């Protein structure tokens, strides 16, 4: 029987953390109690993208997009919407049409400018049910390549599509496939890099959680194209939901005979195994990942030989990122030409970004290449909250750089981002406002890379440590102008001499902030001031006498008794005792304390 309504509950990590599993259970219970479980279908989907407003529940056919749903709201949705057909308006978006009616959610600014190609099934199908993937043309692309195309023809299509690696480097995917295809060996491997370690990036996780079969199918196609019978997915252990859904997906594909010694009955063998990471950022680097997948320390290898020649267990290996695989089936089914219509001259297709930081609509967005940062931040992202000013956007994580407000109209693609001193990276996009100190951010990233450097090569192990120390000195107000020049020199030295991508890109956050926010560095060094008021050593707290009403709240809030004053008289802070914790600012109701 066909159901009269579908209830979709987001099961991505963000919404799950907001209790969406309990919401799902409550729906199950209430639908049953009201004898609706036969006529209404309840589905746990992957990420809808608008994480800031989670947990999200969508009810079709009306397309009602309920946000910030709580377990207590489920009863109202079932009794009002499902039983009586009355949409629960208070849970809908506040965005309205001119006539006051609620905007359909795909017409809201967050969704309207997006182009969901890789994420087409996320938030649409149940990722734990292979039948739903099959219903959306699942495994059709694999059938097509095996029955209608030679391996070389498959590679030619990928080449013609202009698809470039979505893990960050942007290497042409078709070339990678060609190299692996050309290597001759008794065994080859297809590897999926799902070690998404950039802080603030969760594109790959969301794809694996929302549409795991599309990655499995793409790996099968790659296996056919290069002549590999075995695939490995190396996934971060920090992603328990993704790991679980991959395990379910692999098992279901095996049960259906889609994976196995005679995949889909078409005469080719393909099997996939999961390997879990154990918390090391460097394992996102492909050769380090291979070592780790072999069960060793995840130290990078010297290249050449490249993995396409000598990779996993010493055999030729094709290694692509999750999102890269996410494009493959669509390219096969729709053709290379269709794909090249999206994007810019040298960057085709779309890119998924994880929007985070000081932005209203935190979440997952997929945009055509070439869209400007302004559209992403102001339209899709809904701008900066609390009336603050946009200061910079950080892309590429610890390998990338900060894009200043003056470059907000740059069209986003691989080459433009490199040209302005950042990089595409895997897709983390962190927005910063005027309260963010750029020196502190550079220090934050350096601390990360120092911690994650594997220690194999000297420029990265020692160079980045020294760089970090100089930044620390500057944030303490002890830096000199010579330090700035020294830092810059050291940055280039590390970039040129490190063994792998981690070291080669580690100084980027420093270089890009020095380039665009040099005045902030100078303020720290020369004026001993932190303009954003972040670096504790350079901040002092002061009570504005005119505004202080002498209520004593700050005095009571101060943990070190640094504030004195008589009741109804202006208070004062003793700078020698003050530990700059900010408790007084939080306590003051008159905005009388400045830093």
């Amino acid at each position: 029987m066909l159901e009269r309504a579908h209830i979709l509950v987001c099961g991505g990590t963000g919404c799950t953390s907001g209790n969406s599993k309990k919401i799902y259970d409550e729906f199950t219970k209430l639908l049953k109690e009201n004898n609706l479980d036969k006529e209404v279908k309840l589905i746990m989907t992957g990420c809808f993208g608008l994480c800031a407003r989670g947990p999200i529940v969508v009810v079709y056919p009306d397309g009602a997009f309920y946000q910030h749903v709580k377990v207590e709201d489920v009863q109202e949705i079932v009794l009002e919407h499902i039983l009586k057909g009355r949409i629960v308006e208070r849970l809908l978006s506040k965005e309205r049409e001119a006539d006051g009616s609620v905007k359909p959610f795909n017409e809201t600014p967050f969704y309207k400018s997006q182009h969901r190609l890789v994420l087409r099934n996320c938030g649409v199908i149940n990722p734990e049910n292979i039948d739903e993937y099959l219903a959306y043309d699942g495994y059709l692309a694999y059938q097509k390549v095996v029955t209608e195309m030679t391996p070389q023809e498959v590679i030619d299509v990928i080449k013609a599509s202009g698809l470039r690696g979505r893990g960050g480097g942007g290497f042409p995917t078709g070339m990678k496939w060609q190299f692996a295809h050309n290597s001759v060996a008794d065994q080859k491997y297809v590897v999926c890099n799902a070690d998404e370690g950039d802080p603030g990036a969760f594109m790959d996780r969301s794809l694996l959680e929302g549409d795991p079969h599309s990655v499995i199918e793409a790996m099968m196609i790659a296996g056919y194209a290069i002549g590999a019978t075995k695939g490995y997915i190396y996934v971060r252990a920090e992603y328990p939901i993704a790991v679980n859904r991959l395990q379910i997906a692999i098992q279901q594909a095996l049960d259906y005979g889609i994976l196995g010694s005679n995949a889909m009955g078409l005469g080719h063998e393909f099997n996939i195994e999961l390997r879990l990471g154990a918390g090391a950022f460097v394992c996102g680097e492909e050769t380090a990942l291979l070592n780790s997948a072999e069960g060793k320390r995840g130290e990078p290898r010297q290249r050449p030989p490249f993995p396409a020649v000598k990779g996993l267990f010493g055999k030729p290996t094709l290694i692509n990122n999750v999102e890269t695989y996410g494009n493959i089936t669509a390219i096969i089914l729709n053709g290379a030409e269709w794909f090249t219509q999206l994007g810019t001259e040298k960057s085709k297709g779309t890119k998924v970004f994880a929007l985070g930081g000081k932005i209203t609509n935190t979440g997952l967005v997929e945009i055509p290449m070439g869209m400007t940062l302004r559209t992403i931040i102001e339209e899709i992202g809904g701008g900066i909250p609390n009336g603050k000013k946009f200061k910079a956007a950080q892309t590429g994580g610890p390998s990338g750089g900060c894009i200043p407000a003056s470059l907000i109209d740059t069209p986003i693609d691989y080459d433009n981002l490199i040209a302005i001193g950042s990089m595409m990276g895997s897709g983390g996009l962190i927005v910063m406002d005027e309260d963010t100190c750029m020196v502190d951010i550079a220090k934050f990233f350096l601390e990360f890379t120092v911690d994650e450097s594997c220690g194999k090569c000297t420029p990265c192990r020692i160079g980045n440590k020294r760089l970090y120390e100089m930044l620390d000195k500057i944030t303490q107000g002890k830096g000199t102008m010579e330090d700035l020049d020294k830092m810059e020199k050291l940055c280039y030295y590390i970039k040129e001499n490190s063994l792998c991508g981690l070291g080669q890109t580690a100084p980027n956050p420093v270089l890009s902030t020095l380039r665009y926010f040099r005045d902030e560095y100078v303020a720290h060094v020369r004026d001993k001031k932190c303009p954003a008021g972040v670096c504790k050593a350079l901040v002092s707290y002061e009570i504005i006498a005119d505004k202080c009403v002498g209520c004593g709240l700050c005095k009571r809030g101060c943990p070190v008794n640094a504030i004195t004053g008589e009741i109804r008289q202006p208070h004062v802070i003793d700078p020698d005792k003050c530990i700059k914790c900010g408790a007084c600012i939080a306590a003051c109701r008159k905005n009388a304390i400045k830093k």
Partner: protein
Amino acid sequence: MSKEIIGTPQQWEQLEKELEVLKNEPGPVMKAMQAAQAIYGYLPIEVQSKIASTFGVSLEEVYGIATFYAQFNLKPKGKYTIGICLGTACYVKGSGLVIDKFKERLGIEAGETTADQKFTLDATRCIGCCGLAPVLTVNDEVYGNLTTDDVDKILAKYND
């Protein structure tokens, strides 16, 4: 080779069973260590020894892997592990202040465990729910949109 049993006999038996399964796999050492940590909660030296001898590698190699990856523990953890996300999205929204407050309240640094074995404080990498930033986890429970005011409330919840 050490024949010494560590933990309960059941734990040891389960370890031996898991190692047996992995014997035919290529590159089994890390998988074995992950399985062992799931059993013991950490990797006692005797367990590392056992893994080394089972797969014919040196103890140095196993120890090298254990110290390379953040998720392997050489010491037992506290009853509750508080993991504060220091990913970029959480950091720009103030998770650094939150971890400082935890350090102050618990009297330990990140990576340490309180003397009563109750709390372990960890600075974690991005756990991927940036929409809720700043975020922390206490074992498997997630807390989002934190401020420093939440620290005492959260600690009080685990005051058993």
